[in-house]
């Protein structure tokens, strides 16, 4: 299991930092990229992140009236789609620890006319401020790797999920092909920071992105972590050769 070291240190990319420091450093990264987050997502993934998110919605089993928590929801791509499907009798909560990302997300969704069934909450995934058994679906897309204590966050998600509910974790993972791994590594460490530098004038944040992906648990480890906190019928689906994996687990 991926775990923090005994002296309360954790990873920030390849660096080992104090747990408290990581929170601030991650916050700094997202304050820096929030305004151009969507453009960068499209550029970096060549638009494929939209297909990964479509797959997440498809695997969620969402229906009218569902209550959904979109953790690390950022600029609200998943929230937007969920709010359309769940309708006025349902509710979607867009939660993010970073207020800059929340502001960008709220503005974007309001511009799209998505109002009425969406709430915005600044929260820490490790200590979700909701009663037990509150949500039918919880999603966390490209957010778990930035969480300091992943086990604590998964346990917190398990607590607030309704029995029968499901958690979906969409996150960068380990490619299952050697050639793809080499190409992907070259792209991540050489091209990605350059794109970041040109578009957001911030190559360090994208260097962190590449490093944090490498430090994130692989498919099987994350599946094990989900089982450890109580999720059942856990499974994962590799997307784009394992560059991204979609993990799914149920609470019974």
């Amino acid at each position, binding site marked *: 299991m991926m775990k923090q070291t005994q002296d309360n240190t954790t990873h920030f990319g390849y660096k080992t930092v104090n747990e408290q420091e990581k929170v601030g450093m991650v916050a700094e990264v997202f304050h820096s990229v929030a305004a151009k987050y969507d453009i960068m997502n499209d550029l970096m993934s060549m638009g494929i992140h939209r297909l990964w998110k479509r797959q997440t919605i498809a695997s969620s*089993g969402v229906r009218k009236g569902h209550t959904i928590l979109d953790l690390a929801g950022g600029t609200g791509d998943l929230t937007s789609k969920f709010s359309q499907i769940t*309708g006025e009798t349902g509710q979607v909560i867009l939660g993010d620890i970073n207020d800059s990302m929340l502001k960008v997300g709220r503005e974007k969704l309001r511009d799209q006319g998505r109002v009425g069934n969406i709430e915005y909450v600044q929260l820490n995934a490790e200590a979700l401020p909701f009663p037990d058994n509150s949500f039918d679906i919880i999603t966390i897309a490209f957010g778990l790797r930035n969480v300091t204590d992943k086990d604590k966050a998964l346990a917190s998600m398990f607590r607030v999920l309704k029995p029968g509910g499901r958690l979906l974790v969409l996150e960068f993972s380990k490619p299952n092909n050697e050639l793809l791994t080499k190409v992907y590594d070259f792209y991540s460490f050489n091209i990605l920071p350059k794109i970041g530098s040109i578009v957001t004038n911030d190559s360090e944040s994208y260097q962190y992105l590449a490093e944090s992906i490498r430090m994130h648990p692989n498919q099987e480890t994350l599946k094990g972590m989900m089982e450890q906190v109580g999720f059942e019928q856990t499974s994962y689906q590799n997307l*784009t050769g394992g560059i991204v994996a979609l993990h799914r687990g149920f609470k019974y």
Partner: protein
Amino acid sequence: MLFQLIIALIESILNQAMKLSPQLHDDLRAIKHKKLQLSIKNWQQDFILLYTGEKFIILTTDEKQADCIICASIETLLELKDPAKITKLIREGKLDLEGDIQLAQTYSSALSKVDIDWPEQLSHFFGDGMSHRVTQSVKSLHTQQQKLLEKLKSTTQHTLQDELKIAMHPIELTIFKNDNRQLTSDLELLEHRINVLMQSVN
């Protein structure tokens, strides 16, 4: 991921059609937020079609989780353009339907009524005159294509149904043989006469 891309494109086309044919909203209002699941025979993946009140959403799924589930081949699904055929197809065993049949009928009826006013839509880009000419040309091309296809179909049918005259009839063969024998005999006679003539000359 290729599958998701195709689904996204189909969803986009459907939503574009909805923009160009706004009466679809009225036709689909009753089934807002209801899920229609299409399970295509011999395909590994099921699809969910959902109308949200604003647009269509199409999702892939590996679960049975809709208000109405239709299981059929792709050819049968194409026949569903006519809502009256649903019951007939079920009776013929070509279509399995679980759940709310009205949902399937509403979708079928609404999508079959899609009527896009192309001259009006094109006039925004090319002006009235040009868009009228373009529409008429496309219609005429379509009619010609339909005629050509029908002709081709009819020719193929005739070719397949009618017995082709490839081999000679036995009577024709007998006549040919007799004619051939007669010709040989005439040639021999001619040769004999020529030989007699040559000898007399010499």
